[in-house]
């Protein structure tokens, strides 16, 4: 029995020498090549979460509406009237760095299958994207946007939201996080379980090829010069086939012969069969000779590790396959019985009449190691901000506003989202471009609000606060539509955790998230971790992307960001402080990336949310918009631009404690810009007292300029040129 293996061999399967020894111990023998590949891929960070597991356990995952938390293909939330929302966010960062179009396309394809496997019909896609600055990163930006559109548009699921950010740290390691939202009747939820010995394992959809072998291991290594050679580890998508697969699965719902459905994603057949068997407390026997191939001469190793897209594992009651085969025939989908559920607790793989691999299922799943490392906080003096050295009054408030509106991270992404079908499904009641998007459940009055958020600059400056802000801001985006935030799917994008600073970031981020989740009563029901986002030793900012879902019982009461009616009052909800640390204003006017991000008073934050929801439910509001990057003035300008209406404001009340730049451009949390008819004012004031929320009258809607009397007046056309023009002319042309 040998307990060592060459370093080259181990690197190929992304295992350490110590891990190899554990494998030999667990099996009581040395694994053969197929077994080593299977264990390697399931023990990879991407599949096993071996480094992040201890942190993930700290995140709250239960709540009154939670039907399914982490551990299935996607999380499930009860949204009322017998309906459930199924959703999950997932990263496809490394494939997108190497092959942006297919990397992004298959990222969308993979997350759609996760949701479809739960029995849900996918009804919306959101994409959270991060690149290096343009124009240098244009090929990645272009490729990713085209790939998302190419897949989502063809498959017929609307892309309704997301974010696009440009920061230096993502130059060689873009982030592509895709979220899918689906709906299903609660009594028709499917589970990814292989149970009942003798029941059959059906492989449905695409034939298996050599594409994507080692994709999961690839995702668990840093990118370097050799990464280009891993291009074969990137899969190729076929959205047409996926569409047929989704429709076929929809027709399978309610068929009693179906025991379970499991998507084939990272680590292909190995992961799908092992996870389904593990959940069912069973074993499985598969015969590789029955797996339909698209290439000749594939070894068992290649078949087991292939990440060919558009495949599903369907577990069917033995003897009842005839009930469901007509569905696949109708959709012209290939289907093959590749094996069966067993009671021996092993995953046994046969090929050409011989056993090619035989591993206890728990070795593949539960026995994956956990890594506990040592974190170290970076130098506290790093990025310290001396605000007193910054002049408190901007040279030109109007000039700063126009610069902010034209900043690629704030400017309208219209030129991106018009490349995505946003409306197919006849359910999109709030389209992209405002705070959260909203999908109605057709035939009901239920609206589902959805958003993704993360300001990673805050996270770089202080990962604890940055994580809390990401959750608070996502919640504000949901609340601004009148919907109540109900659950989160998170995508934790970090650098190499072997670096003590990155490990510390993971610790800080997850404790910040856990506290924010508890304070705002938001469970995390699904998610994904992407580590090793490093290039040549440089890590990305910690980027915990928060995908959030909200529910409104009557979508007719929804609110949008744009000012709606001339003569309405414009108010600010929440107090403002000198919160300039990490602000976009300091970057564009003083070239500073420093300071402490704004504190989040979670109780105050929650009060502001409750206030807004009460005001919206009472029908007192006509618009609401979250105040985030660029502060109050950017939020006001956006509300003007989206509503195509100006606003007239008297001079702002100042106080000795509040700096002028912070007043206009500070990024204090817990704030909204709202508008309401004059008749609502008494009730809005009553509610503010009851919820202990500060509100301040800013001005009146009307005219064709954003005006602060005696200070400045900027015509809407100038604001629009900056906001909409940024991506359509000049330096950041798409």
């Amino acid at each position, binding site marked *: 029995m040998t307990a060592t293996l060459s370093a080259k061999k181990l690197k190929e399967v992304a295992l350490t020498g110590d891990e190899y020894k554990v494998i030999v111990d667990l099996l009581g023998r040395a694994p053969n090549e197929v077994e080593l590949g299977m264990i390697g891929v399931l023990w990879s960070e991407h599949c096993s979460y071996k480094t992040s597991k201890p942190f993930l356990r700290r995140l709250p995952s239960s709540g009154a509406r939670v039907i399914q938390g982490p551990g299935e293909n996607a999380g499930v939330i009860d949204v009322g009237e017998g309906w459930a929302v199924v959703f999950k966010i997932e990263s496809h960062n490394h494939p997108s760095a190497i092959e942006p179009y297919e990397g992004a396309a298959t990222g969308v394809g993979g997350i759609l299958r996760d949701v479809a496997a739960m029995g849900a019909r996918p009804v919306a896609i959101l994409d959270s994207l991060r690149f290096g600055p343009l124009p240098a990163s244009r090929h990645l930006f272009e490729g990713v946007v085209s790939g998302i559109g*190419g897949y989502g548009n063809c498959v017929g699921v609307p892309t309704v939201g997301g974010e696009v950010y440009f920061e230096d740290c993502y130059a060689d390691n873009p982030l592509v996080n895709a979220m899918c939202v689906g709906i299903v009747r609660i009594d028709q939820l499917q589970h990814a379980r292989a149970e009942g010995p003798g029941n059959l394992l059906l492989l449905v959809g695409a034939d298996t090829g050599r594409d994507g072998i080692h994709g999961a291991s690839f995702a668990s290594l840093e990118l370097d010069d050799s990464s280009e050679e891993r291009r074969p580890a990137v899969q190729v998508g076929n959205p*047409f086939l996926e*569409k047929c697969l989704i429709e076929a699965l929809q027709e399978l719902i309610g068929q009693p012969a179906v025991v379970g459905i499991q998507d084939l994603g990272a680590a292909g057949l190995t992961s799908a069969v092992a996870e389904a068997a593990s959940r069912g407390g069973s074993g499985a026997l598969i015969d590789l000779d029955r797996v339909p191939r698209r290439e000749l001469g594939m070894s068992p190793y290649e078949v087991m590790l292939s990440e060919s897209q558009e495949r599903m594992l369907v577990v069917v009651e033995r003897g009842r396959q005839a009930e469901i085969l007509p569905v696949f025939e109708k959709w012209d989908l290939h289907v093959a019985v590749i094996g069966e559920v067993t009671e021996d607790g092993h995953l046994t793989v046969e090929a050409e009449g011989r056993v090619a691999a035989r591993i206890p299922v728990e070795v593949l799943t539960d026995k994956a190691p956990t890594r506990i490392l040592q974190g170290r906080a970076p130098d506290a003096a790093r990025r310290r901000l001396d605000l007193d050295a910054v002049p408190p009054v901007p040279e030109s408030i109007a000039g700063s506003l126009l610069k902010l509106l034209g900043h690629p991270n704030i400017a309208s992404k219209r030129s991106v*989202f*018009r*490349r995505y079908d946003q409306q*197919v499904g*006849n359910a999109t009641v709030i*389209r992209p471009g405002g705070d959260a998007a909203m999908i109605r459940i057709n035939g009901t009055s239920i609206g589902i609000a959805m958003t993704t958020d993360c300001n990673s600059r805050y996270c770089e400056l202080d990962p604890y606060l940055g994580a809390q802000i990401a959750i608070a801001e996502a919640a504000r985006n949901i609340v601004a539509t009148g919907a109540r935030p109900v659950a989160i799917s998170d995508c934790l994008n970090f650098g190499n955790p072997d670096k003590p600073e990155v490990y510390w970031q993971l610790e800080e981020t997850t404790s910040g998230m856990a506290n924010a989740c508890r304070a705002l009563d938001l469970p995390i029901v699904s998610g994904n971790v992407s580590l090793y986002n490093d290039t040549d030793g440089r890590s990305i900012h910690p980027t915990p992307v928060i995908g959030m879902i909200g529910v409104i019982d009557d979508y007719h009461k929804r609110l949008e960001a744009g000012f709606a009616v001339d003569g309405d009052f414009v108010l600010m909800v929440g107090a403002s402080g000198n919160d300039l640390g990490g602000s976009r204003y300091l970057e564009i006017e003083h070239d500073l990336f420093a300071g402490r991000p704004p504190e989040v008073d979670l109780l105050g934050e929650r009060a502001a949310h409750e206030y807004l929801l009460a005001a919206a439910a009472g029908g007192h509001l006509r618009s609401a918009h979250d105040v985030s990057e660029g502060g109050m003035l950017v939020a006001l300008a956006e509300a003007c631009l989206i509503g195509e209406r100006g606003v007239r404001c008297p001079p702002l009340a100042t106080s000795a404690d509040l700096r002028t730049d912070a007043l206009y451009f500070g990024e204090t949390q817990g704030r909204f810009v709202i508008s309401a008819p004059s008749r609502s004012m008494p009730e809005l004031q009553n509610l503010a007292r009851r919820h202990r929320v500060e509100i301040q009258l800013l001005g009146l809607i009307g005219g064709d300029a954003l005006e602060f009397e005696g200070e400045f007046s900027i015509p809407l056309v100038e604001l629009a040129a900056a906001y909409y023009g940024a991506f359509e002319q000049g330096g950041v042309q798409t």
Partner: protein
Amino acid sequence: MRFGVVVFPGTWSDRDCGWVVEHVLGAELEYLWHKDRDLRDCDCIILPGGFSYGDHLRCGAIARFSPVMESVVDFAAHGGLVWGICNGFQILCETGLLPGALIRNDVCEFRCEWTNLVVEKDDTLFTSGLGRRDVLRVPISHGEGNYFADPATLSRLEQHGQVVFRYCRPDGLVVPEANPNGSLHSIAGIVNRAGNVLGMMPHPERCAEPELGGTDGLRLFQSVMSSFTGVPV
């Protein structure tokens, strides 16, 4: 009256069209599977949007060979109402029920956005409830909606008044800036000579309810319904 919505593999506007027919318009609905030849006594056949057969080879190129299309061609030849929307328009051109072709948008990108359409022809069964020069707000969603035909075909279309919709500004003026995809003569929709086959790139089924951004699309469905039943909308 009964609408038939054809479903090819890869079609995705079928359920949206069905929703409008059944729940907004309140008409009868049948889904027609591409492998079936039976049109089930439908009075108007809708070929909806999507990527039929993955739009492999060329948009609509494979759909024209499907069994259901044999029946649709026959139905149209006998004066039946056939309405192609988006991919459906592409299929009608491939089938030869309408002249010309839809090629890649001149912007070389997929475009999903609201457009304004000026009604050029109000004497078809599809537009009977509209007025000439009415401006409709209807969204598009396509990568290949750039209408192209040779000069002789184009001049015949114009001469016979077969252009039903053109892309325009909100005030009805037809200008190049309002043309989202480079279509010749800003063409958004045409009918055949007999007036019973309409093809259009914009999606009227996506604007049949105020919650979804507008109701101009519903006016087309209502036109078909009232011209067929004789009951004014």
